[in-house]
């Protein structure tokens, strides 16, 4: 099987989708001529022409808004917002238009649009290039939210997102673009070419939205997470020496609650982990749902490990980033009770 970085896998998904369906078009800042600041759309303009892969002005509101119009007509826009942090000018169009078009028109008009955005920290991006805004999307009825953690998943999930009849927010953990990142910033990074999840099937395949993946089976506790934190979780579990089941959600909405609750009911202990800030984060939703379904199986309160409730700082990033040490502490705490 070919090995790819997450960037190449995402690019490949675009190629497959564009070859299969002439209504798929790709737009965003620097995506055409330049091929994207992270190179996720490199060569698409050359291969498919400027009508199907093109540069937009720096106008996020206009980009998302025109995307909604294109999608309502029946095109399938795949939009890149250069960083998730730049989404806010376009947020109104996502919430007020994209998410609600189907409901508002009683199903007559829909918005089959994908909005891709690099998300997360760990790259010294400070407050305007490191945020994890997933909860701003999962809070909106009508949007689906996906966060892959491997190249193979990124491709399969992106193809499923493009095929989906509703608007999908596709958050790409930028710290994972070139290799898995386990939070040990001081250790040499491993490229995807040396990692089993770097193997990506050629051609068309999808990974259904709403299906989680058990990344590591275990019996003592369950660690529920997604995106970059999947790799941090695995490192923390190895270091803690506890037999923890690690679940990668892959999609936050729709959520595969069944897989999560089956695991937590089995282990009786649960830690929820995300990079985004704690308060009103997606972890709060997870904790609420899990306690509801697993209340009588829980041996300890569910703990959350998350970003601190501050803007993302420029300095002290490695303390701020919820790395393996913090995850390990939480695992040890849930094991105590």
């Amino acid at each position, binding site marked *: 099987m070919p090995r790819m970085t997450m960037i190449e896998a995402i690019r490949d998904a675009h190629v497959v989708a564009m070859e299969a369906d002439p209504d798929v078009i790709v737009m965003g800042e*620097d995506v055409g001529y330049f091929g994207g600041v992270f190179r996720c759309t490199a060569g698409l303009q050359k291969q498919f022409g400027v009508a199907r892969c093109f540069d937009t*002005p720096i106008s996020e509101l206009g980009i998302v808004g025109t995307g909604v119009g294109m999608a309502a007509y029946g095109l399938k826009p795949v939009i890149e917002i250069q960083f998730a942090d730049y989404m806010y000018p376009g947020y109104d169009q996502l919430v007020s238009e994209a998410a609600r078009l189907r409901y508002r028109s009683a199903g007559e008009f829909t918005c089959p649009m994908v909005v891709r955005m690099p998300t997360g920290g760990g790259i010294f991006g400070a407050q305007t290039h490191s945020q994890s805004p997933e909860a701003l999307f999962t809070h909106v009825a009508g949007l689906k939210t996906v966060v892959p953690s491997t190249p193979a998943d990124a491709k399969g999930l992106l193809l499923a997102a493009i095929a989906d009849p509703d608007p999908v927010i596709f958050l790409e953990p930028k710290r994972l673009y070139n290799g898995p990142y386990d939070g040990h910033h001081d250790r040499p990074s491993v490229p995807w070419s040396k990692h089993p999840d770097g193997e990506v099937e050629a051609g068309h395949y999808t990974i259904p939205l709403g299906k989680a993946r058990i990344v590591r089976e275990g019996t003592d506790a369950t660690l529920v997470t997604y995106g970059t934190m999947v790799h941090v979780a695995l490192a923390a579990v190895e270091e803690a020496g506890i037999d923890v089941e690690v679940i990668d959600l892959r999609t936050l909405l729709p959520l595969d609650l069944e897989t999560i609750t089956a695991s937590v009911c089995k282990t009786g202990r649960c830690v929820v982990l995300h990079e985004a800030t704690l308060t009103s984060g997606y972890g709060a939703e997870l904790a609420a749902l899990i306690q509801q379904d697993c209340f009588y199986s829980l041996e300890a309160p569910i703990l959350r490990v998350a970003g601190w409730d501050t803007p993302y700082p420029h300095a002290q990033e490695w303390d701020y980033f919820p790395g393996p040490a913090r995850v390990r502490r939480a695992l040890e705490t849930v094991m105590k009770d």
Partner: protein
Amino acid sequence: MATRKTAAKSNVSTDELLSYYRDMLLIRRFEEKAGQLYGMGLIGGFCHLYIGQEAVVVGLEAAAEEGDKRITSYRDHGHMLACGMDPNGVMAELTGREGGYSKGKGGSMHMFSKEKHFYGGHGIVGAQVPLGAGLAFADKYKENGRVTFTYFGDGAANQGQVYEAFNMAALWKLPVIFVIENNQYAMGTAQKRSTSTEEIHKRGEPFGIPGELVDGMNVLAVKDAGDKAVAHCREGKGPYILEIKTYRYRGHSMSDPAKYRTREEVQKMREERDPIEQVRGMLLKAEVGEDKLKEIDKEIKEIVNASADFSKESPEPALEELWTDIYADEIPQEVN
């Protein structure tokens, strides 16, 4: 750069020229040093250098008076140095240290100085533009005769909020100068690929805002245009647009593969149009000796080296510092 205004003022004094030379050189050398520190791993993340664009901010600062305000994007180091902020504090913010203007919490794109009326570097493209109009509103409200220089790029000129700000500024006759630093590229996208009309300075016309195109490689032309715009604002005639054509020599930020333009294009600009070399030529013609210029070079080098030393010696902010300055009062929070 087809259209160009020639330097009008022939009566510029040698002292003025010397001060432009000094201020532009400070920015150039500071940015070169920042580039070096970045290469050494002392600065991380984003760092947008101003090299090539020095005449824009130096020319406009020469047109400003005490109390005038300035606000800009993430490409902000030059603006801070030109308005008299301390190079040590700027460099230490780049390295994320306690001695930085935002105590290391903001980084290259996010620094401020109340003392110098510098209302920040802003990382979100276009976000500073309505803020600039708001600052000008406050000046007008206070009737203090001040103006606000609101800087943004050619790429930022396509953000919708820019035009909301234009309308409000014109409607309320705000003393704001919208300075479009047109370096002809927004990241990897040349202006023509993203912008429907070439003449961005004319985009104020439908709002009734006068605008003009200025040669941004010529500090004297910039100063002249600045004087005119400032006078317009101080007379209570409302906003003014200056589209200043300039050029950045370096990449958009430090990790720019630069595949969107040729090396020759950059080289030609540096050789034929460099703003510092132009002033240097004028100074030599005005019989300021090489010695004097060498003395300035040396003085600048010392300032810049001192800022680099400071930025290495200043400690990282204490971890507790991350929870300060979120609200006026500390709100207790769970830390895991």
